[in-house]
């Protein structure tokens, strides 16, 4: 992690005793205790020691964030421990090294704790043979139709077959047939024949998502993953099972058969569906987004994300995106519009302008708007956006950058408190100029109680009293947005902005973690990243410059905003830095 200031004031954890073990002859020192899936310190296992020694131990059922099951048997290794004499003292070799008593039986690396002096052997002929045996067993009843399997390219069976597979199967019996294309829930399909019964999905939904919805029915070779008949697998985290399924058994209805994974470009980004800011990868090809998947960040989301956030990308490719710069309803150009706006703003009397900037805008954009606010002596705020939260990842605050809006001075502790003042100011004719970024002020407020129980992306926008009639009283209404809106329709200037996938920037999540995201695709038409054109506008209005890149802009902002002092774009790294909020 970065060395930038972090105010995570956790007490230093007590020093954990280290012990020495050998992995394939290489000595490594590892902590005696390591965190288990839930973060509890438990004896370090062989597989963790092997990881420390950078030795890969193939596995299917083991997942560091799930309880250990030990059922796939792929991680079997051989091992030995220092031999003890009858006096319980170590027996020494003639050369003074401890004599190692090799265990006659192998052990699963995922569940076996290490002990001082233990030697782990992962490359012996016996280990290789065991892995080959497990792989062969997994493949005998598995369909060998990789060319038409959606998992191809990210399948652990394929991957390990390269190392431990046989070129021909000796299996000549009839395969066990199980249900295919099973509709497991609204977002998940199951191919039970491809399933290797590692139970990762069962453990995830039971132990992480807290929805004991999946199980194994039948017995022995006929074991099959299943929901209870008539009870769809539909919690808000089901798609994580697709990520952790090591084979092509569980697939996402949204993504399956849309694109071969090896054609996809992965871009590091952050989910914008709520204040949690789950780290994600955007998979895209030729300016089209195909899926979001969680990107592991133990400070935020671990390896998981919610289904609602994961599927919240389709709007980016909507045909009716705002693609043109409009001046009084007519298509125009950035130069014309920004010059006109700058000239107008320069003449605005202090106190007669207001800025409503969405907490879905980035830190950099909000900061630039705060510069404009200072110059204009404007009143500002953001629009609160709340919905259902849960105890795992989903926050009630559906704005991804509430803390950014606060830290840059656009909104205040109680977000939305100024909206009615702005409405009143317009009504009284005191506020003549309104700058709106990323909000449709005329969107009707929704009653929280009216939200449907199972709806994943429901949210509430607070009633604030700004009506079309009020907006009609303004001299100048400047609106930047991504999608068409009733507010934009009334605007004198419409500036087409970008989805987060189309630009770079940072958000500050609910815990004050400043996280950056990268650009995955190009914006449509004339749309430009807001920070990019805001920079031009602020320069035109205030005469200040110095940041032509997002890096420069961020670093400038970090110097200016007290909470961000000391941060640098580079220092944020991939997992972000937490600041005091």
């Amino acid at each position, binding site marked *: 992690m970065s060395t930038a200031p972090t105010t995570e004031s956790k007490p230093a954890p007590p020093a954990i005793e280290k012990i020495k073990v050998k992995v394939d002859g290489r000595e490594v020192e590892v902590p005696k205790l390591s965190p288990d899936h839930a973060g509890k310190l438990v004896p370090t296992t062989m597989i963790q020691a092997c990881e420390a020694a950078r030795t890969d131990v193939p596995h299917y059922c083991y997942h560091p964030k799930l309880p250990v099951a030990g059922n796939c048997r792929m991680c079997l290794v051989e091992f030995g421990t220092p031999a003890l004499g009858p006096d319980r003292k170590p027996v020494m070799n003639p050369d003074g090294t401890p004599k190692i008593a090799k265990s006659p039986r192998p052990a699963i690396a995922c569940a076996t704790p290490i002990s001082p002096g233990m030697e782990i052997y992962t490359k012996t002929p016996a280990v290789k043979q065991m892995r080959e045996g497990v792989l062969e067993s997994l493949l005998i009843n598995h369909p060998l139709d990789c060319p038409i399997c959606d998992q191809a390219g990210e399948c652990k069976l394929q991957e390990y077959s390269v190392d431990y597979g046989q070129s021909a199967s000796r299996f000549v019996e009839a395969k066990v047939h199980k249900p295919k294309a099973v509709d497991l829930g609204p977002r998940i399909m199951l191919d039970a024949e491809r399933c290797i019964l590692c139970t990762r999905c069962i453990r995830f939904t039971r132990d992480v998502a807290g929805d004991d919805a999946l*199980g194994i*029915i039948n*017995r022995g070779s006929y074991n099959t993953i*299943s929901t*209870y008949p008539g009870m769809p697998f539909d919690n808000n985290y089901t798609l994580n099972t697709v990520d952790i399924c090591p084979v092509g058994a569980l697939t996402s209805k949204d993504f399956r058969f849309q694109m071969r994974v090896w054609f996809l470009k992965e871009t590091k980004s952050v989910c914008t569906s709520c204040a949690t800011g789950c780290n994600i990868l955007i998979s895209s090809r030729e300016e089209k987004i195909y899926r979001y998947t969680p990107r592991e960040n133990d400070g935020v989301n671990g390896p998981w994300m919610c289904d609602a956030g994961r599927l919240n990308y389709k709007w980016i490719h909507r045909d009716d995106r705002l693609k043109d710069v409009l001046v009084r309803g007519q298509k125009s150009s950035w130069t014309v519009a920004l010059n006109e706006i700058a000239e107008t703003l320069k003449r605005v009397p202090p106190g007669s302008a207001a800025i409503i900037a969405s907490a879905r805008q980035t830190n950099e954009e909000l900061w630039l708007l705060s510069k404009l606010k200072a110059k204009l002596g404007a009143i500002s705020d953001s629009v609160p956006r709340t919905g259902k939260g849960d105890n795992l990842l989903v926050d009630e605050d559906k704005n991804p950058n509430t803390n950014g809006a606060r830290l840059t001075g656009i909104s205040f502790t109680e977000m939305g408190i100024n909206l009615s003042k702005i409405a009143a100011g317009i009504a009284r004719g005191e506020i003549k100029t309104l700058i709106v970024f990323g909000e449709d002020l005329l969107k009707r407020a929704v009653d929280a109680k009216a939200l449907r129980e199972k709806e994943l992306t429901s949210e509430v926008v607070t009633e604030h009293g700004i009506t079309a009639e009020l907006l009609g009283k303004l001299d100048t209404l400047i609106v930047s947005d991504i999608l068409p809106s009733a507010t934009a329709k009334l605007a004198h200037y419409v500036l087409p902005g970008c989805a987060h996938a189309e630009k770079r920037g940072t958000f500050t999540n609910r815990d004050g973690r400043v996280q950056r995201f990268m650009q995955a695709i190009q914006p449509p038409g004339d749309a430009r990243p807001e920070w990019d054109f805001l920079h031009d506008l602020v320069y035109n209005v205030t005469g200040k410059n110095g940041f032509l890149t997002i890096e420069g802009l961020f670093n400038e902002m970090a110097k200016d905003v007290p909470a961000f002092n000391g941060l640098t774009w580079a220092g944020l790294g991939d997992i972000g830095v937490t600041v005091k909020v």
Partner: protein
Amino acid sequence: MSFSVPAKLETEIDELITHYPVKRSASLMVLHALQEHFGWISQAAVEWTAKKLGLQPINVYELVTFYPMFRQQPVGKYQIKVCRTLSCALGGSYALHKHFCDKLGLDAHKHGVQTTKDGRFSVEFVECLASCGTAPVIMINEDFYEGVSRAKAEEIVSQCK
């Protein structure tokens, strides 16, 4: 069809649950009690059990599909279970199974439990019944029969009214 557990049975079940510090442990005993009463474990019975024990239905469904003694559909009034495993096979259990099937108009080569059209008899092979010294052995419902010859089989079946 509504599913209702008589008060007396529910009282028995409630007593069974007290045998365990954790309710879930009573799963098998509750299912046995329901099956004894209803003859099989319907989906409604699975759901009733789950609710009774504070479980998800899948938790119970996992058990019902694992343990072959639980019936997922109605079976005959007389359930003939013929032991299939080695000692009984050495003692002629395959011929005995075929004899039952032939006599009752069932297919001796079919896997799993088969029930006569009139619903009176079910016949199935089961694994070792732990009475290998008196092979071949069968069970009819809860009753156990050892050293079952053809003649004895005839006699047993004729007594099933």
